[in-house]
C-alpha cells in the first residue's frame, strides 16, 4: 500500500478494475456509459447532478472528474458552487431531520 490512500493518477486507472473481475466491471462501465447519455435529462444536466453527488459522497476522484466535466459543459463557477451547496444542504438536513427522532424519544421518556 502507498503512503497515501488517494492518488490522482489512479483516476486514469479506473478502467483497470475489470482486470480482477471482467464481467461485472464491463457491465458496470456499460451501465455507467448508458446513464450519462442524453436522455430525459441532458448529458449536461446529469453532469451537474454528478458533481453534487460527488461532494455528497466525498469522492475526490469524482470531484476531479465532474468539476472538469461540468465546467467544460458550460456551467459557471456560481452554478457549480450552488450545486455543492445543494449536496451540503441535503447532508446537513439528513442529520438535522433525525433531530425529530431525538425529540420524539426525549418527549417519550421525560415527565
Amino acid at each position, binding site marked *: 500500500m502507498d503512503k497515501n490512500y488517494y492518488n490522482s493518477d489512479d483516476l486514469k486507472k479506473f478502467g483497470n478494475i475489470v482486470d480482477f473481475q471482467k464481467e461485472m466491471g464491463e457491465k458496470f462501465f456499460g451501465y455507467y456509459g448508458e446513464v450519462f447519455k442524453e436522455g430525459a435529462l441532458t448529458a449536461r444536466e446529469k453532469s451537474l447532478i454528478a458533481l453534487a453527488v460527488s461532494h455528497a459522497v466525498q469522492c475526490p476522484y469524482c470531484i476531479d472528474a465532474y468539476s472538469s466535466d461540468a*465546467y467544460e459543459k458550460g456551467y459557471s463557477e456560481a452554478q457549480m458552487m450552488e450545486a455543492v451547496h445543494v449536496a451540503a444542504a441535503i447532508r446537513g438536513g439528513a442529520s438535522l431531520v433525525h433531530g425529530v427522532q431525538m425529540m420524539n424519544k426525549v418527549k417519550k421518556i421525560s415527565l
Partner: protein
Amino acid sequence: MSEFIKIKLKSLKANSNSLSKAANQLILLEQNPEEFTPFRTKLNEINLNPLEPTALEVFQINLGKMCNQVCTHCHVDAGPDRKEIMTKETMKIIVEILKLNPNYKVVDMTGGAPEMNPNFRWFVEEISALGIQMYVRCNLTIITANKKYNDLPEFFKKHNVEVISSLPSYSKDRTDKQRGDGVFESSIKALKMLNEVGYGKEGSGLTLNLVYNPAGAFLPPDQNALEKEYKLALEKDFGIAFNNLFAITNLPVSRYLDYLVSSGNFEDYMSKLIDAFNPTAALNVMCRNTISIGWDGYIYDCDFNQMLELKVACRDSQHISEYNSDSLLNRNIIVSNHCYGCTAGSGSSCGGAVV
C-alpha cells in the same frame, strides 16, 4: 455607433515573449517524445503517414494580423499592435489564381480582423464577381468598433458572404474572460445587427454560424448538445438567431500555447489531446482539402502551420507568385504535435467537429 473594448493584453511579439518565435513553439511541442507520442507515429499506426491532400477546395486567406481584440487564446497572436497586412498586389494575384482554378469552392477570409484590411471590400467585390462562395471570420465587435464598420452586415449581405463568428459562451463572464472586457455586450449588439438584415433567419439564405472554443485548458463538449443550448439561451435572453454552432478545439499554438505553459496546464492538455486521438477525425482533417495563404502570400497546409511558419512541402509552389496546382495536390502535408488538436474526440476544423 462606436464602442471600445478594454484591451489589457499585448501580443506575444510586442512583449518579446520567446513563444512569439515559431521555432521555439515547435521545440516545445516536439519535446519529450517518450511521453508525448509524436503525431507522425500515430499517423503511421493508422497507415496515414504521410498525410496527403484529397482535393484543393477551400482557399483560406489571412488578410492580416491586425485586430481590434487581443484574445487570450489567439493562435495568430493578433492585436492592434500587429501591422502585418496583405497588400492589394497580393490580393490581385489571388484573384487571378481563383479565376484560373475553378476547383476552389470556398474562399475563407480570416485574420486578425479581416475587415481591417484597407482593401477588404475591394477584394470581396472581386471574388463575388467570380461567383465563389465566401466565408468571413468576423469577430463581431469590429462591426460596432467604429462607424465605418457599422454597415458591414449590409455589405456582407450584398455579396452573400457567409459570416462565421466567435462567441465562446452565451454568458458574458466566460466570453469576456477569453476575449476581453466588453466583448460580450458588443458581440450581442453586432449579432442583432446581423439578424436585422436577415443573417441567421430562416428562409433568408444568409448564413450566420457561431464558433465555440473552450475558455480554458479543456476540450469542447458535444457540438450538437451545445448548439441546442446556445440557440435556447440566445433566443431567450436576446432574441438572437443563428444557423450552426461550430465547436472548435484550441490548438497549442502561439498565445494559447503560452497560456498552457504559464498556467501549468501544458503537459495535461497535451496528454488529453493525445489520449483523445480519433483515427476517423484524422482521416477528415481540414488540411486535406484546404490551403492557407499568409498575409505575405506564402502558402501553408493550414492556418496553424502558417503561424508556426511551416510552409508547404513543395519547393516550386511555396508562394502564390509561383502557384502550381499539381505540386500542391501532390505534396505531403507537414505535421507536428499541434495537429493532435484537430484529431481529438470529434475532431476539429474551421467548420467545427469532423465526425
